[in-house]
């Protein structure tokens, strides 16, 4: 993590504000529209993209053949240099003085603008956002909203200065200015360059999705037209293409269709009747190799919708100039690995905190968080502090033995300064208090070695060692619901190791836990986790790390606690212990979003008679131990998110918060100042299980 760049980004208050608001809005629009999309398109899209990854070389050959049949020139560039050389020498040999471009990340990847400019060829970006960042001398900060970091005032000032206009800070006036200003460039340019959202192998045509009409004008006006696309954009048939075209705008901006879809080829609809000279450049640059790499191949399914950027908590704060290379945000990490290598990717991988929201929203189910963990692992550059954080469970065990000392240390200014210096735990972070003792010790042998259970409770570090009170309550609730519960001694889920890319260590923990749990599962017991992150590890991460039948089986039998209760205890009804006039804000932890469709906990709380409010702002910003890390390494970014989330929650007027994650509780308590309770406590009250606030220490 580049601390000075983080601090610089954190200093740009207005940029953070603009970006946060915009990303949140885009995410909410996309989420609502995706919910309405016919499911067949998503299934079709997945199949189409998988076919591309599996048969990439065959489809490249088919595209070349079809495009040639259409009468176009096709060039498959192995490297960025090859692609750049082809286009630059084409422009030079035709005497082109000015090139107009529609938005294309692939041209960013090959550094085309710089190459053309170095040969004296003028380049004019025609997408509004791209033109703005071009005038600013910056690179796009977001793959579909290049200027999302700039305010209207900044844009008006910039354009006025660079183009000699006198523009008010009004988007309408700025847009009207560009309509006039760029029209002259459309008319005079000798060459047009477009990217492509899809390339259709069966006909060899490129397809462009735009809203502004610049893509159509670029394809219509100049005599020479070049389309450039990464080879992974190829799909085999038009049916495959329309799967992409149907889902892309919905996932990107929440619209059923963008204003324009343009199909380009040598027989395209140019103002010269057909395109006088057409070239299709297909770029490999690591893609074919990646299609054979078990960790990177899935990223080739990406359709560049940017839904993952909009939901990513650290991206919302830092933006693509920090959390990004050519490709930015979550998808940018595997894409930097594919196109530039692991070392470059590992630089931006550090900004990922493994919340998994990007996987949750990705229409082609790319497991970006696990791929990023692997990239961190493969890069091998870990800090001592990261290493220390993976020993979190050891620290918790020690705290369970010496609670007074640990609680004192966590409360004392001097020791917090020491902890900050030595362990890298930010002194401003509110820490959980230790109860003393462990859940295993409290429950005793009966629960530890029971073999006749139909439920195995997996408490993870917090309920096992920091506060066993919540663990005891979970067991009591499950028993009250008629289940026989076993609590065998297990290791913490190992999430810090996964998060910081210590996959060998994570593998060892996963092996031990799977080994312990598999015999229960074989006899039909289900595993229930009160920490959503633990359920995520058992269900999603372990099978990927271990890739064994046993880990797969354990995954299939694992449940997140409240989803389990929602599914199993259908007869739960409003309990006597609850006050029905209580308004509770429900915070949905990131990992439970991924694991259970819908909002089972929220529905459950409503079912037992609570007035529940919620808001889909995404991650609360703590992300396990990451939000505890010192300054720019974690806490400062975490606090930026936490403050914004708190503002939303406090705005609802709720006086308490329900959630399932112990770390989310830590963050929410710190930034809202409200009481935070585990959802299970409301269920316990419904079932008449008495407990006091002091029975559970922190939430």
């Amino acid at each position, binding site marked *: 993590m580049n601390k000075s760049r983080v601090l610089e980004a954190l200093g740009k208050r207005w940029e953070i504000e603009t970006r946060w608001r915009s990303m949140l809005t885009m995410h909410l629009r996309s989420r609502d529209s995706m919910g309405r999309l016919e499911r067949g398109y998503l299934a079709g899209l997945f199949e189409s993209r998988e076919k591309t990854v599996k048969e990439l070389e065959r489809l490249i050959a088919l595209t070349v053949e079809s495009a040639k049949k259409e009468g176009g020139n096709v060039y498959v560039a192995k490297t960025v240099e090859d692609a750049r050389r082809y286009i630059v020498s084409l422009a030079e040999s035709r005497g082109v003085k000015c090139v107009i471009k529609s938005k294309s990340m692939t041209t960013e990847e090959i550094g085309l603008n710089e190459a053309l400019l170095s040969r004296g060829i003028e380049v004019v970006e025609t997408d509004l956002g791209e033109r703005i960042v071009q005038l600013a001398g910056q690179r796009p900060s977001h793959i579909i909203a*290049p*200027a999302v970091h700039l305010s209207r005032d900044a*844009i008006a000032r910039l354009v006025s200065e660079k183009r000699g206009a006198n523009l008010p800070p009004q988007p309408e006036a700025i847009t009207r200015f*560009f309509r006039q200003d760029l029209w002259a460039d459309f008319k005079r340019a000798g060459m047009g360059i477009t990217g492509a959202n899809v390339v259709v192998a069966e006909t060899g045509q490129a397809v462009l999705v735009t809203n502004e009409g610049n893509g159509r004008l670029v394809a219509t006006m100049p005599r020479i037209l070049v389309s450039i696309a990464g080879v992974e954009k190829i799909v085999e048939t038009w*049916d495959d293409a329309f799967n992409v075209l149907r889902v892309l705008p919905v996932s990107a901006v929440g619209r059923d*269709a963008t204003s324009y*879809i343009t199909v380009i080829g040598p*027989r395209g609809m140019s*103002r*010269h009747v057909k395109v006088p000279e057409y070239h299709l450049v297909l770029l490999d640059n690591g893609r074919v190799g990646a299609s054979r790499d078990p960790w990177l191949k899935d990223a080739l399914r990406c359709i560049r919708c940017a839904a993952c950027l909009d939901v990513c908590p650290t991206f919302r704060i830092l933006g693509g100039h920090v959390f990004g290379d050519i490709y930015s945000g979550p998808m940018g990490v595997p894409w930097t690995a594919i196109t530039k290598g692991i070392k470059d990717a590992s630089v931006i991988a550090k900004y990922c905190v493994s919340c998994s929201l990007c996987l949750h929203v990705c229409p082609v189910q790319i497991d970006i968080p696990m791929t990023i963990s692997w990239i961190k692992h493969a890069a091998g550059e870990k800090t001592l502090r990261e290493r220390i954080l993976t020993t979190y469970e050891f620290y918790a065990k020690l705290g369970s033995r010496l609670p007074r000392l640990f609680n004192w240390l966590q409360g004392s200014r001097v020791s917090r300064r020491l902890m900050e210096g030595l362990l890298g735990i930010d002194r401003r972070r509110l820490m959980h208090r230790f109860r003393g003792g462990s859940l295993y010790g409290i429950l005793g042998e009966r629960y530890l070695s029971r073999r006749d259970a139909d439920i195995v409770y997996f408490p993870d570090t917090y309920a096992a060692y920091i506060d066993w009170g919540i663990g005891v309550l979970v067991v009591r609730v499950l028993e009250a619901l008629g289940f026989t519960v076993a609590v065998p001694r297990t290791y913490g889920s190992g999430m810090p190791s996964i998060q910081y890319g210590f996959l060998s260590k994570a593998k060892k923990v996963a092996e031990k836990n799977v080994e312990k749990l598999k015999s229960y599962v074989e006899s039909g017991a289900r595993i229930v986790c009160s920490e959503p992150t633990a359920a995520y590890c058992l269900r999603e991460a372990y099978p990927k790390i271990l890739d064994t039948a046993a880990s797969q089986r354990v995954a299939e039998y694992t449940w997140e606690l409240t989803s389990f209760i929602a599914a199993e205890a259908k007869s739960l009804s409003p309990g006597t212990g609850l006050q029905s006039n209580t308004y509770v804000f429900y915070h949905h932890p990131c990992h439970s979003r991924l694991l259970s469709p819908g909002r089972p906990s929220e529905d459950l709380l409503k079912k037992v008679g609570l007035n529940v409010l919620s808001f889909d702002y995404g991650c609360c910003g703590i992300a396990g131990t990451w939000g505890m890390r010192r300054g720019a390494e974690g806490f400062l970014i975490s606090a930026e998110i936490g403050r914004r989330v708190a503002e939303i929650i406090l705005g609802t007027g709720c006086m308490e918060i329900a959630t399932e994650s112990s770390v989310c509780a830590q963050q929410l308590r710190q930034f809202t100042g409200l009481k935070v309770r585990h959802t299970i406590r409301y269920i316990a009250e419904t079932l008449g299980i008495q407990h006091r606030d002091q029975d559970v220490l922190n939430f």
Partner: protein
Amino acid sequence: MAERNNSQREAKLAKRGARLEVEGFLERCRNNGFQVVHVHSVDALVDVLADWASSWGVRRIVMGGLSKGLALRIRSGLAGRGGYTVLEIDRVEMEIEEYRNNSLGVFRAKAGILETGGVVIFDDWASNLASLVPEYSVALLEESEILQNYRDLASLIRQSRPGGVAIISGPSSTSDIELTHVIGVHGPVGCGCIVAGVELDE
């Protein structure tokens, strides 16, 4: 004869539930920012064109890709109303600047897409220009040309193998500045779609 043809057609449409489809299609187009209307004669179509042109404040009508018969009927219909300059994009050499500002482009769409609310052009450079360059544009479409969804369009593309396709689902727009939606960037500032319950190219 024409009347009989029309009533046969109506019966066919009613049977296919096409009426509902037209309404659904127009509704989706409207949501995408089109002005929409359903007409049952070419005269009515010309009336709508004239109304829209005057509401948009343009007096120059530019036709692209229309059949000779339809172009003639629109030209004479507008001539009857007076005050319009009617051009036809029929030559490559035609100065594009002539129909960029204060113009309304009229083009013939190949199909409409019910599911997403858009119109489609195949292979026609003049339709492409009329739908793209002028400040305003209007698509003309027959009821029977409305397709259900992209899957139907994929089949049509496979049959016809067009060299170029444009699917238009609203006016040109951007949200690049603070996510504020602004209509009218490089393409038309306003657009319309007229669905005709009669054949247009007779």
